[in-house]
């Protein structure tokens, strides 16, 4: 069994422009922000991003890295509308595949199950069908004869997720109340990279937490990155909540100014920049 630990930079070195990239979490919750920051520091672009969108989408869109976005929403939760994503949409800065939250889930499940599609009721009758002319319907072969939406598999080249703990082999643990869809993202992708607050010995994973918290299986994980505070400024329950003050600043600051201050050399530089920012505010 191989040691899968690597740095965020090594993760990014395995990604390439033009890829379809899944990003776990939900809105402004447990997003793999350290990996997104590494992506921002790289030259990688022309991406198709698959995400229940939050600041991950906002930052990549602001930096011009997204060619196409597949999503049901983009929000910062406590700030309902993601300003950088909005700006990108309003200037025609990216292509969009807009589907419903449930359709999105079915797309992940279809990909994880190696199915071409899954039938869903959601979407029928809505303008999701109008703005996605490639979507097809499927008719039940049984007596009901119902016509449903055939949600295509959302297969991805790579997935990026962030969890609380992982061992060096890629067994990933979620200690918060909601696993979101991170296991599905990993199973629906050809490669999956997991950042975590702390890498621990395998035995330690279940010392104080129940086995149900073991969200990610190593067979679906390619690389493990130890990234303390790696979801900042999104929440990572139970270890930290969203950094609301920093998020508000992100949401109200021109992207160029934000990027200059916070997309520095590496994650240590980011942490230092956040500390300096906080000191100025308190000062």
């Amino acid at each position, binding site marked *: 069994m191989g040691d899968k630990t690597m740095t965020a930079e090594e993760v990014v070195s395995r990604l390439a422009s033009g890829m379809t990239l899944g990003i776990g979490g*939900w809105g402004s919750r447990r997003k793999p922000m350290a990996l997104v920051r590494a992506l921002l520091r790289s030259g990688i672009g022309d991406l198709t991003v698959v995400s229940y*969108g939050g600041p991950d989408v906002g930052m990549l869109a602001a930096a011009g890295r997204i060619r196409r976005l597949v*999503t*049901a*929403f*983009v*929000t910062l939760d406590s700030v*309902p*509308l993601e300003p950088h*994503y*909005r700006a990108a*949409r*309003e200037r*025609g800065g990216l292509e969009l595949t*807009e*589907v*419903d*939250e*449930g*359709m999105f*889930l079915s797309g992940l499940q279809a990909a994880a199950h190696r199915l071409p599609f899954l039938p869903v*009721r*959601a*979407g*029928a*009758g*809505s*303008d*999701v069908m*109008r*703005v996605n002319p490639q979507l097809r319907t499927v008719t039940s072969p049984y007596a*009901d*004869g*119902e*016509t*449903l939406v055939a949600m295509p598999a959302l297969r991805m080249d790579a997935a990026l997720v962030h969890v609380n703990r992982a061992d060096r082999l890629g067994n990933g643990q979620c200690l*918060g*109340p*909601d*696993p*979101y*869809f991170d296991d599905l993202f990993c199973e629906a992708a050809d490669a999956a990279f997991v950042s975590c607050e702390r890498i621990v010995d395998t035995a330690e994973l279940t010392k104080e937490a129940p086995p149900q918290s073991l969200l990610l299986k190593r067979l679906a994980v390619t690389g493990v990155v130890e990234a303390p505070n790696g979801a900042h400024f999104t929440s990572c329950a139970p270890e930290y909540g969203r950094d609301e003050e920093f998020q508000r600043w992100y949401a109200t600051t021109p992207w160029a100014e934000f990027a200059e201050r916070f997309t520095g050399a590496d994650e240590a530089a980011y942490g230092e920049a956040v500390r300096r920012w906080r000191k100025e505010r308190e000062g």
Partner: protein
Amino acid sequence: MSTVGTAVTRAEYCVIACAEAWRGAGEVLASPMGLIPALGARLARLTFAPDLLLTDGEALLVRPDGTPEGWLPYRQHLALVAGGRRHVMMGASQLDRYGNQNISCIGDWSRPRRQLLGVRGAPLNTLNNATSYWVPRHSVRVFVERVDMVCGVGYDRAAALGDTARFHRIAGVVSDLGVFDFATPDHSMRLVSLHPGVSVEQVRAATGFPLAVPDEVPRTREPGAEELRLIRTVLDPEGARMREVPAEGARG
């Protein structure tokens, strides 16, 4: 603390009207979005709809005192919607006379004038479980002839789908001016009750399509003393409801 003699505010009529959406709903999940619907759902749960389930807004099902009684992470929540044991009250940036709702964007979808949230779960909700809408500021900008992007499916769209839409039901709409439903022969929107102090003409002027109006329009019902006590001293002692719906007359 005495609440006797204090006039009922517009925000409080709105809370009562939202609570009524869950009357008779039984043992289902109440999913309110927005502050006043959340107060309404909790009020209903504490009074006439004790079997309702409520969440903490995250992954837990909680009793009114906050005690967890179940686990409902987003993935199970989406499955629960498909199973139909739920009544959601969503917001609406635009709503048309047949109940088509938009929260995605304003203008041409391919390059919107104003990007909003996205369709979120509106297509899923409206085809699977009872859906109501809450509009804190009734205006012709919200109640439009045609929505720019159909997120929540209305009655005309549902009718065209046949069996696929067999679980579709828009229970009603509550705004700061009144209560509405779609119980007309062609399922177009109808005025059900006016909040005290609001006139039919005021509602017509703030609605961008012809509204069905019965000859006699009742007033939204008065809250009971216990309901007022719960709203004012238990559910919203800080008066946050007044920020969502300001006092009557303060509307600009």
